[in-house]
């Protein structure tokens, strides 16, 4: 069997005599780790580590965070309960119950609008499916912690008044 056609990584590197003694190679490795240690002791502030609750990662504007429902000028949701987002949703996490709207120019409005954040995969397809620009993932919130599952099913009021401090 020939190994000539294989890339370099697939063939075993020849170890010369000094390398096969281990001792020198181990010393070289120790120098590498110690140089990292010394560098980091004297330049602790230059480490890439973020001190999380005090310092936070800055994400791009296009980052898809927790959803929010946009409003008309009178404060009612833009959503017309067309069910397109919940139909399109690959995670099946949107639950809408629609009802007739009083205004004849508006077809329907959502009686309830619930999103299960634990099922949501934050793909943004609901945003694309929406014909009225009623749902957006532009809040930038990524801290979504709670101590029970029920708290992750967020309702219409919550989505309309989405807070930005990351609490549920």
């Amino acid at each position, binding site marked *: 069997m020939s190994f000539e056609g294989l890339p370099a990584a697939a063939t075993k590197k020849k170890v010369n005599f000094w390398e096969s003694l281990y*001792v020198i190679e*181990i010393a070289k*490795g*120790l120098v*590498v*780790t*110690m140089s*990292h*240690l010394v560098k*980091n*002791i004297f330049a*602790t502030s230059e*480490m*890439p*580590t973020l*001190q999380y609750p*005090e310092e936070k990662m800055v994400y791009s504007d296009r980052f898809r965070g927790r959803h929010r429902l946009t409003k008309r000028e009178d404060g009612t949701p833009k959503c017309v309960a067309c069910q397109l987002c919940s139909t399109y949703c690959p995670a099946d996490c949107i639950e809408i119950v629609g009802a007739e709207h009083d205004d004849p120019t508006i077809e329907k409005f959502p009686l309830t609008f619930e999103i299960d954040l634990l099922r949501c995969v934050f793909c943004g397809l609901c945003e694309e499916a929406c014909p009225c620009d009623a749902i957006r993932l532009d809040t930038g919130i990524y801290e979504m912690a709670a101590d029970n599952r029920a708290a992750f099913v967020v309702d219409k009021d919550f989505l309309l008044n989405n807070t930005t401090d990351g609490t549920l």
Partner: protein
Amino acid sequence: MPIVLESLAKIGFMFAVIMGMVPLMIWAERKGAAFIQDRTGPNRAAIAGVRLAGLIHPLADVVKLIFKEDVQPASRHKALYNLAPWLAMTVAVSTYAVIPFGDYIMIGGKKFALVVADLQVGALYVLAVSSLGTYGIVMGGWASNNKFSFLGGIRATAQMISYEISMALALMGLMLIFSSLRITDIVVGQQELIFGFLPKWGVVVQPLGFILFLTAVFAETNRNPFDMPEGESEIVAGYHLEYSSLKFALFFMAEYCHMVVGAALITSFYFGGYQIPGMPRAFLEAHAGGLLTGQLIAIICTGVIFGLLFLRRVQLEAGKFGDERDREPALGAGFWFLVALGALGALTLKPWTIGPDGASMVATVAQVMAFLGKVVFFSWFFIWVRWTLPRFRYDQLMHLGWKVMLPLGLLNLVVTAVVMALV
């Protein structure tokens, strides 16, 4: 009766040193690993806003481990399961009995040797007790009634048998040179100078033996790259897989005690124990006043430098956290300036006019500090190596033990014997 009190005092000192070293080692392990891997490591736990660069974390760990639920497998062997961690811990600590941590101390005109038990067969005792350490691991592994734990125990046995031999062979070369099994004799023998400048340390006269002994000690302490019995990527956590709470903490502490023991053995056998190269006891006693003065000046300089560094942090990090932790730099600066001030105050007592009793005490303290300094360095060496080298595969471990280290150990012994016969 006085001999009992004397022994108890020495045991107490050694025990305090080891038990003080263990949390420091755990801290050094976590912080050192973090810095080697470009992370910051533990820095959250705080008492009244003082974090001591993560030194509070071992304390928090201890509290956590004590109050955790002790989950035990239903099918365990009750007696052995409970005995194993205590055995591991006891054996780890008992090796210290024969290691001299200083020459002697003069109290009220009486000489006290600074070693708990000055055995004539100290080196044999070390070899015997260090192999006993595996019993705790094997018992824990077997009594847990878990296949992974059992595998860990078996690995520990095989590894101990393989590396015990190389360790003994490496030590035999040393015994030939210093013609004694008594560890104090070996340490005193390393005081001499070769060619007038090179200390006759074990590492100088037995370089190959040192490398073999070092490798064997790594294997005996079950530390990376030889931590086969633990092998978390292969056998989950090995022998301590079924242990939790305080019993796990004991196994964990036993591992670190083993490391400190290993470091103390390396220091005593190969790095002159408590000896300071070029400064025999008589020299230390003759220049005790000057040494003490120099030491105090060094402490003042350290205190001022660290104090100024902390003062700089006071400016740089004002209001960084918005809670108690913001007081930390100011407290640090205060502490270091107080240390400098204390040393300055001690200088007014004219330490350079120290009496003969004081000189003897200074010499003793200097030698104990030299011993502890070397032990701390080699303890750090264990950590340093762990975060540098990957774990050996099991067959590589056996290959190294039987096919490389055993022949090299024999060669070292024969060459040493021939040289000793000719010289």
